């Protein structure tokens, strides 16, 4: 292209330079974006995947599931709270300090974001519930369905449950 440039008419050359500048700009922007993405994405895991040891410890992850009935415990002092997330097949204990969202309650599908500690406890810095009581975060719905399918598949060879 650099060879062709001197022979091109002025207008075409200017246009070619413009297009080239645009491409370089877009390329740089996309590269920056992808670099930033690599460092700032949060992977989602279901409680079954956490139990199977698939989730990394020490980096920010998201875990979603239903809040197990009777599992929510508030500390006597302060704002520490502990609860258990389940997808029907496995559970993860979540620790959090702070105010839970309005729609947080037992039996509700929620997503907790934080780091997994060594004993498999998720120390959350964010707990997300939704605006609408009928709404289930898509990841949580998928996690529940997969856990259910696994249990059905697991039960099938052994005959009737």
């Amino acid at each position, binding site marked *: 292209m650099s060879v062709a440039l001197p022979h091109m008419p002025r*207008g075409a050359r200017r246009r070619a330079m413009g297009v080239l500048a*645009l491409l370089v*700009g*877009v390329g740089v*922007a*996309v590269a*920056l*974006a*992808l670099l*930033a*993405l690599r*460092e*700032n*994405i*949060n*992977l*989602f895991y279901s409680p079954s995947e956490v139990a199977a040891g698939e989730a990394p410890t020490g980096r*920010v992850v*998201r875990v979603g599931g239903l809040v197990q009935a009777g599992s929510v415990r*508030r500390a*006597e*002092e*302060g*704002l520490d709270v502990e609860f258990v997330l389940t997808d029907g097949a496995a559970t993860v204990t979540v620790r959090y*300090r*702070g*105010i*839970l969202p*309005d*729609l947080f*309650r037992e039996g509700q599908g929620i*997503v907790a974001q934080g780091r997994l500690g060594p004993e498999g406890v998720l120390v959350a810095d964010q707990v*997300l519930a*939704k*605006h*609408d*009581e*009928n*709404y289930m*975060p*898509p*990841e949580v719905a*998928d996690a529940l369905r997969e856990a259910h399918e696994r249990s059905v598949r697991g039960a099938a060879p052994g005959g009737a449950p």
Partner: protein
Amino acid sequence: MTAELGHLALALALALAALQAVLGLGGGARGDAAWIAGALGAARGQALLTVIAFAALTWAAVRSDFTLLYLAQNSNSQLPLLYKITGVWGAHEGSLLLWGMVLALWGAAVAIQGRRALPAAFLARLVGVLGLVGTGFLAFLLLTSNPFERLWPPPPEGRDLNPLLQDPGLAAHPPLLYMGYVGLAVPFAFAVAALLEGRMEAAWLRWARPWAAVAWVFLTLGIAIGSWWAYYELGWGGWWFWDPVENASLMPWLVATALIHSLAVSEKRGAFKGWTVLLAVLAFALSLLGTFLVRSGVLTSVHAFASDPTRGVFILVLLLAVVGGSLLLYALRGERLGVSDVRFAPVSREGALLANNALLLAAAGAVLIGTLYPLVLEALGGAKISVGPPYFNAVFLPLVAPLVALTAVAGVLRWKRDAVGRLARLLWPAGLAALGAGAAAVPAARAHLAAAAGVALAAWLAGGIAVALWQRARHQGLRGLARMGRAEAGMHLAHLGLAVTVVGVSLAGPLELARDVRMGAGDAVRLGGYLFRLEGFTRVQGPNYEGVRARFRVLDGDGRMVARLFPEKRRYGSRTDMPMTEAGIEAGAFRDLYVSLGEPIGKTGDWAVRVHVKPFVRWVWGGALLMALGGLWAASDRRYRMGVRLRRAAVAVEEPA
């Protein structure tokens, strides 16, 4: 009966929209006056019919007619009248009906107003394209999301409107946002009509500018009110979360901002025409994408409401048709718009506006990547991920900062060619202002140098505007300032709004103080020089809710009372399992005091309480308001209507007596 009337009106509106498309596009191609008149008439009829349909649904909501499935799910006889009405657009079907009605109203407005300004054949094509969009949308509404579906037997009581939406902010937010989204259909139709016509004249571009500006104004207001609503209603004190639903409205806004600037160059200098067409297509496509993202439920969002994926597919097909069709048309006909031989140097107003467009598009692209990346990755069978605010801050802010800096320069730049030396001689006071403001902000911003840099940037922009005004006053005297056209004055006002928003964004986040504490009656907590004392609780009884109200007294460092705050936790009658937080806020020009109740904890009557001191948070929305005012002022410029009179005069001359 009302519902059947509404349903019928909607079906007829669909038929008229299709007719409008056929007559408009056909009439434009054949130059047939009868067809063209028919298309313009159909546009008005379609608007009337959608208004009837919308009125029918509203009337049914006011009368609490729960034989309608939509109302049975989203309304309640105990709702205050205001929320019975605003509840009409509180959920999927009703909000899409609003979308359809707004589209038809824009179409009718174009059909009426355009007759005085545009050649008949071009206007017919424009209205025809709007009819095509309307056909797709009304078909979507009737086939997948009919708001008039009956439910038999009717339930004795409706399930109620989501309590989060029982708020004056929600009364305004969706209609404004939709006016903006749908308003971008006009520049889109304009671009497609120009491609069909094979040319794009300066007079037409002059006609299109205020339409694009007004759509942009609505979008700006809709986003700002949505952010404000999230701030006071969600109870977290945040005003922007980089959430997919928010991004869905930000992307069309960014592209629409690029569009109004590119339109200016196309009209004034005849350059960037093909680019303007592409931006118009892209802005409307992103509006549709926004509707798709919000309404399909494919993304995890803090604002997501129950939604239905099958409907998303329909919008996606509509989106592909719009984008694919118009890009194909651009590939086939784009050349005819004429490759401009307009020359300009890199240092010129054209050059600055080109950079403005590149930066805005890159910013929109960065937001798009972050928003869609989780979707794409999951569709490819990859991991399930979410992209958090750190990504958006890391990518978006470095793109926007040079944009703001450039805005100050563009205000004084000359068209065609300018000299760096001249700019430096003009803008040094703005540079001084930036340095001064930045240095002044350093102690207040403490460790946050980025916040101080933001303030410096805002001061640079404000200084640049002052220099531009001073230049005008110096050359033409104060009378020149007073005579400044509305387009120019509006531009400066909108840019000033940008500076104000930049101050808000720079300071509200980094300087925010927040604490989650456990408090009982009589407890106090100290935050940022203020003492928040919880005096006690009272029960409250609203029209359709009951709740607990906490009484807070806020004292400053000298023990003087500065505010009394009354945050509430409400439970709405029909949805007692969905508690609502009403934050107690003392708004101020330089700081907000904000208290929200979490939940009761323990047996001693303690509550989890979140206390905030938020400096400069009002500036975020105040700036947006200034931008919107500037946009409106610019759109009302006489120049945009002058072409009309000139053309009429020309026609009068041409026509034999």
